[in-house]
């Protein structure tokens, strides 16, 4: 993203100079004292909203408070996280399993909170891994990643992970078209041979479990972003496309030739019905489905071997193309479900399509040709209006629920507020600098909470004390409760946030889990009673069933381990008190530490390579006697015959 943004920057440099005067004007004294009051959350008080910012190339999701901009947590999703041992512990390694083996990183993009009747319900948050296509589900009572499903036949999982208004599906579209199924073929035969898959992953209403229900195999365009229909347009899904030229090289030029690309309108209800009646073609596939079980504190991987594909031509009336100017990026649907906004990133204008007009055009069969058999509607027939913004490079739009929309302009570096229906620009405020996504809590639902908008920028420059060439990205918070937007705060984010999701604090705070119950711990190696600790040898594998409580390990002396052994430390935290984790690390460990929450069991493997007496200790300052929370393992030569023994306090 950043590379091509920089290229665009030079293209738009002249225009940026033009808008400079305007920026200087408002940056002077932007933080008035009333702004300070608006973002000040006094010590001991709590924020009004949660904000979940994607971490981009960090692979994770960060949790912030609004309006304070304070960061509360980084939730590991697609990346190994030594802080907690996620992706290092034996229990969580399977979370990062894919058909390409263990992939310990991804590019996390678009978080979306689950909905019921089009309103945020706060059960789960979903996020996509862009690079090795995956979708993750995070539980919003534990704030832990519970499930990751790989998306086969996809490449650059970017028009994801947006949910339908009752969380029936989490939808994942491919940005890069590829041969489907994958095969060895010349790249220059891309045109009409490559395909783009749009995946509809069903979400179990009770447990949230994901299942790839069907994949729509579309022409080989780039499916950039998407959003669900809602209200009257519930049942439809809208995807922006670029590279309808089907270029396979130098896309920055070759994919920018057509004056108009498309927004693909997909009637998923119709396809669902077709599939439920036995429609579709089963295709061999190979993809991983990783599920974390909270009661065993353990993830398991299932490899799936088949996927149901749907040829759009087999379901008449299911897919239409809406011509949309200039390689549209964001594809946003207003809270009523009436307006579909195409953010033509290479233009100054926004194109707004009307759902009612689209339906009328479909019923009137007013087509303007077809692309690979998919009917193209006439631009004029579906157009609701165009926003003549005066900005350049529109990317994304969110809504305040009061009839206004807010669009980010990357090149002219600003947020523009405009009115739905009249398409008039009401206000514009600069961002610092080059804003990508923006987020209003609930701004992608039927019921937005239009009090703050967060602008997430791609360029930081001089906003904070410099930290060398590499800096965190900047974000700004604007108060949007009045007619004019007011910049009230500026804070650094972690990784590169692409989109965010927010919700009122009262939706999540009361149900946020404090501990895991020890009496519900079903981990096969858990020690659930104070006397259950033991050490068991099985060949050269040694299993240490260890427990922790302030402030000791049981056992804390272990002898009889030999060089060449594979020692599994299964550690159960016996605390049942809020915020009393214990850590575990041992000298020479080739993985990370473990951070074990009350009632939880985690496992670290240690393969001692040297004879000696090696210490282990608690890494979390758990109590006044934390420094004493330590122990020793005696490692003897491989051929020694010292018996296994273990003890505490002897």
């Amino acid at each position, binding site marked *: 993203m950043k590379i091509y943004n920089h290229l665009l920057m030079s293209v738009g440099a002249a225009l940026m100079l033009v808008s400079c005067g305007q920026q200087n004007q408002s940056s002077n004294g932007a933080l008035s004292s009333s702004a300070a009051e608006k973002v000040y959350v006094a010590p001991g008080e709590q924020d009004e909203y949660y904000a979940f910012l994607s971490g981009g190339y960090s692979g994770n999701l960060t949790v912030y408070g609004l309006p304070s901009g304070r960061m509360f947590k980084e939730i590991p999703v697609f990346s190994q996280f030594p802080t907690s041992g996620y992706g290092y512990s034996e229990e969580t390694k399977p979370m990062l399993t894919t058909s390409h083996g263990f992939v310990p990183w991804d590019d996390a993009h678009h978080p979306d909170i689950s909905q019921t009747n089009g309103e945020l319900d706060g059960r789960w948050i979903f996020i996509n891994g862009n690079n090795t296509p995956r979708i993750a589900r995070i539980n919003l009572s534990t704030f832990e990643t519970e499930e990751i499903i790989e998306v086969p036949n996809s490449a650059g999982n970017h028009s994801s992970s947006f949910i339908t208004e009752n969380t029936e599906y989490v939808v994942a579209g491919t940005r890069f078209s590829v041969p489907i199924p994958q095969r060895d073929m010349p790249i220059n035969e891309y045109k009409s041979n490559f395909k783009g898959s749009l995946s509809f992953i069903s979400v179990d209403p009770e447990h949230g479990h994901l299942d790839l229900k069907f994949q729509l195999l579309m022409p080989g365009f780039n499916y950039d972003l998407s959003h669900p229909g809602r209200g009257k347009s519930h049942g439809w899904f809208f995807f922006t496309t670029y590279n309808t030229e089907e270029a396979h090289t130098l896309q920055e030029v070759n994919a920018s030739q057509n004056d108009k690309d498309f927004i693909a309108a997909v009637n998923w209800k119709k396809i669902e019905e077709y599939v439920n009646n036995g429609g579709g073609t089963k295709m061999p596939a190979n993809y991983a489905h990783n599920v974390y079980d909270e009661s065993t504190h353990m993830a398991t991987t299932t490899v799936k071997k088949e996927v149901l594909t749907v040829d759009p031509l087999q379901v008449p009336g299911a897919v239409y193309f809406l011509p949309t100017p200039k390689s549209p990026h964001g594809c946003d649907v207003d809270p009523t479900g009436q307006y579909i906004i195409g953010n033509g990133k290479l233009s100054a204008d926004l194109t707004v399509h009307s759902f009612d007009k689209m339906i009328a055009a479909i019923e009137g069969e007013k087509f303007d040709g077809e692309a690979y058999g998919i009917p193209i509607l006439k631009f004029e027939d579906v157009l609701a209006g165009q926003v003549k913004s005066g900005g350049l490079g529109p990317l994304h739009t969110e809504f305040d629920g009061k009839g206004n929309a807010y669009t980010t302009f990357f090149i002219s570096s600003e947020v523009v507020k405009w009115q739905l229906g009249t398409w008039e620009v009401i206000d514009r405020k600069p961002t610092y600098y080059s804003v990508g996504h923006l987020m209003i809590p609930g701004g992608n639902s039927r019921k937005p909470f239009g009090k703050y908008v967060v602008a997430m920028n791609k360029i930081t420059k001089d906003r904070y004390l410099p930290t060398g060439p590499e800096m965190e990205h900047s974000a700004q918070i604007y108060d949007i409760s009045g007619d004019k937007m007011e910049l009230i705060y500026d804070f650094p984010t972690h990784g590169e946030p692409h989109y965010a999701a927010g919700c009122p604090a009262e939706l999540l705070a009361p149900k946020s889990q404090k*501990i895991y119950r020890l009496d519900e711990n079903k981990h096969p190696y858990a020690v659930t009673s104070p006397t259950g600790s033991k050490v068991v040898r099985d060949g050269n594998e040694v299993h240490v069933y260890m427990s922790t409580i*302030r402030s000791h390990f049981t056992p804390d002396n272990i002898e009889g381990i030999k060089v060449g052994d594979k020692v599994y430390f299964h550690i159960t935290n016996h605390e*049942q*008190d*809020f915020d009393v984790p214990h850590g575990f690390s041992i000298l020479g460990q080739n993985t990370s530490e473990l951070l074990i929450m009350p009632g939880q069991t985690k496992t670290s493997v240690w393969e001692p390579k040297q004879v000696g007496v090696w210490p282990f200790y608690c890494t979390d300052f758990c*109590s*006044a*006697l934390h420094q004493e929370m330590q122990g020793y393992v005696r490692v003897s030569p491989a051929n020694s015959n010292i018996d296994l023994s273990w003890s505490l306090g002897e």
Partner: protein
Amino acid sequence: MKKAGILMIVGPLFLLGLYIFPLWNIMLGAPQYPDPLGLNIHINGLKGVNEFDIQNIDGLNHYIGMHTLPKVDDMWEFGTFPTVIGIMVALGVLIGILGYLDKVSYKWFFGWFILMSILGILGMYDFNEWLVDYGTNLDPNAIMKLTNPDGTPMTYKPPLLGHVKMLNFDVTSLPASGAWFMFVGMMLTLAAGFLGWKNAKKQ
């Protein structure tokens, strides 16, 4: 005497609240416990205000050498108190009925009240004895052995009534809902006695 008799029947029944509601409550708050730990003292055992409070109080107290909080089988009181209360309720109701039927005089009402008051004071005395033992009978191998400014070993007896600052903890000990039931019930029996006494004077 009818009204007095009814009051005397109803009053002791309030003591049944002790089987459901805690008699006493001790709360321990500290900077790192913004939601305080709490101990509810029932006539038949100790319960945490929140599920894991007892475990967490024990976990903290072991640093300073305090013994773990007693389980039901560890103290004879938890077996005896419910029986005593049961007998007193039955006795009180019986006196009330007999009073209603004019078989006994109001003096019996006062008699029950005085007996119950003596038992209550004995109970409080016993409770205080336990608090003293709990707070002063410390493990000699305690991790932290603290002393008062005058050099004597620090002890940790929670207050019988009221608030005390103990190390980093604010400890507050107050009668709980069960005690208020008992108080109301006993006041009713006292009222029954006075009412009976007034009636007797009129005649």
